[in-house]
């Protein structure tokens, strides 16, 4: 599948934003701290920026509002509806934190639950597609959820070291969720590698009872929408290395940095904030690589008609 930069950016940014908002909803950070107020604003900015970038790949973005209408059957529509509903408690909680320096339990927890539901809908958009066998597993939404929560705790860890307090609990949870997320992703990858293709050139053409089917001539000599959208192959040969890069940058380094801060018993300060910033930046780079692989490695059933 073609890894469109707008979709990669959207799923990564909004995943981090929803994760941070979900963590903020738990009320772990001190609502009176300036850093916590920034965290609320950043969460909303990440979510909003992600949603805006997701409209960039649309052919007719001016009609995007119509995407809220088919929630009964479409996971994409459900995601849109949930994203808007989730904004209500998030904006309310952010308002209370920024202007009143208060944390309210009910709107907070409601925001946390709705954030997770929205991320689940994002994962289900991919998991519901039977035509892309790699994605068609409950492990897909599980990975999306765990990555969002892990990213949320990494960001919250940064704000904790910037003055929001809880410099032990939040980094510990970040490490735990990083391990859980990458373990789930490793399972997902293992599942992908052991897949027996559901559809083959034989089943796609119905000619399997005559013999082995291979493409003799494409319908057109040049690429078309289907081959460029569904037949992406560039750099698939580097997949193993990229997976390693994603795992190290997205999981090992941020977890290691937080662990070293915990072990040295570091308190708030410019140095600890710098280390936590490094953790956030490497985690984001790792996530972008992971999302790129999520698309680039997925094979679509239609390629059985195109010899790939």
């Amino acid at each position: 599948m073609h890894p469109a930069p707008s979709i990669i950016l959207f799923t990564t940014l909004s995943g981090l934003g929803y994760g941070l908002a979900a963590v903020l909803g738990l009320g772990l950070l001190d609502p009176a701290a300036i850093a916590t107020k920034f965290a609320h604003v950043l969460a909303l900015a990440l979510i909003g920026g992600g949603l805006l970038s997701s409209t960039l790949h649309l052919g007719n973005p001016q009609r995007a509002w119509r995407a809220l209408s088919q929630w009964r059957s479409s996971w994409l529509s459900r995601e849109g509806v949930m994203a808007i509903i989730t904004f209500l408690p998030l904006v309310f909680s952010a308002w209370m934190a920024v202007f009143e320096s208060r944390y309210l339990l009910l709107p907070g927890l409601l925001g946390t639950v709705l954030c997770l539901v929205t991320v689940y809908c994002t994962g289900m958009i991919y998991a519901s597609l039977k035509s892309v066998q790699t994605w068609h597993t409950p492990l897909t939404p599980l990975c999306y959820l765990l990555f969002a929560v892990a990213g949320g705790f990494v960001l919250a860890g940064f704000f904790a070291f910037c003055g929001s307090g809880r410099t032990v609990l939040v980094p510990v949870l970040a490490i735990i969720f990083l391990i859980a997320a990458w373990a789930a992703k490793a399972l997902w990858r293992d599942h992908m590698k052991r897949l027996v293709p559901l559809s083959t050139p034989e089943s796609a053409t119905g000619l399997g009872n005559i013999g082995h089917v291979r493409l003799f001539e494409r319908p057109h000599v040049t690429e078309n929408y289907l081959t460029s959208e569904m037949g992406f192959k560039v750099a698939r040969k580097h997949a193993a290395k990229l997976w390693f890069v994603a795992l190290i940058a997205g999981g090992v380094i941020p977890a290691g940095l937080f662990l070293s801060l915990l072990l040295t018993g570091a308190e708030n300060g410019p140095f600890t904030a710098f280390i936590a910033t490094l953790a956030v930046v490497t985690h984001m780079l790792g996530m972008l690589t992971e999302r790129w692989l999520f698309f680039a490695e997925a094979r679509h059933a239609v390629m059985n008609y195109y010899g790939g």
Partner: protein
Amino acid sequence: MTMLPAHSTPKKLGLVIDLDVCVGCHACVVSCKEWNTGGYGSALSDQDPYGADVSGAWLNRVHTFEVVPEGGEIVGEAGDARIVHFPKSCLHCEDAPCVTVCPTGASYKRSADGIVLVDEDKCIGCGLCAWACPYGAREMDLAAGVMKKCTLCIDRIYNETFEEVDRVPSCVRTCPANARHFGDLADPQSDVSIMVAQRGGMDLMPEQGTRPVNKYLPPRPRKSLADSARGLPLAENTDGAKGFFAWLDGMLDRI
């Protein structure tokens, strides 16, 4: 409305494509593009149409496959490899995954005749329906930013200003080999249903659970090339010549 019709549609209009007959001339491909670029919805655009990297939206494409029987990699060893031309357009599935994923309600399946259509005024061009279709039946029109697909020439089949013979999809009307047939596959007495029953018409990718309406008729079994060659007269051999040719054979031997 992107829910599928609650009940099986009373009519299931669709195509039956005969893989034994198709000669791979691409006339249906061109005819489809020509009809649909001027009819329903926005024109079917091409990108860089006169350049080196030409591409565009097509609703019907012909692929060509080589089928090699088990052990047939070496000529004459087992069976012979054969070429099968394979036209492919929307299969108007009963459980169309492209319909249910649509977030806007632009993609829908008609409850009266089962035709799957896109309402271009509602389509936002997100492309999710093309991802959901395992057959590659939907292509984005990059100029208009909306999804394009086979309409079964809905502006022909119900057009009463046309002669009866022309009220079929453009591809069917055009096919010079009569490899494409149009009809109601819900009616067991229709020509297409009878053809499917007699020839063992098949679904493409039944494992995807889409229950396509369009059926494909498999190529008929073929004699091996060596068997076909045995019946040809050989110039060096006059055994079994009769009448005038036996006399001529004898006379020529004597000279």
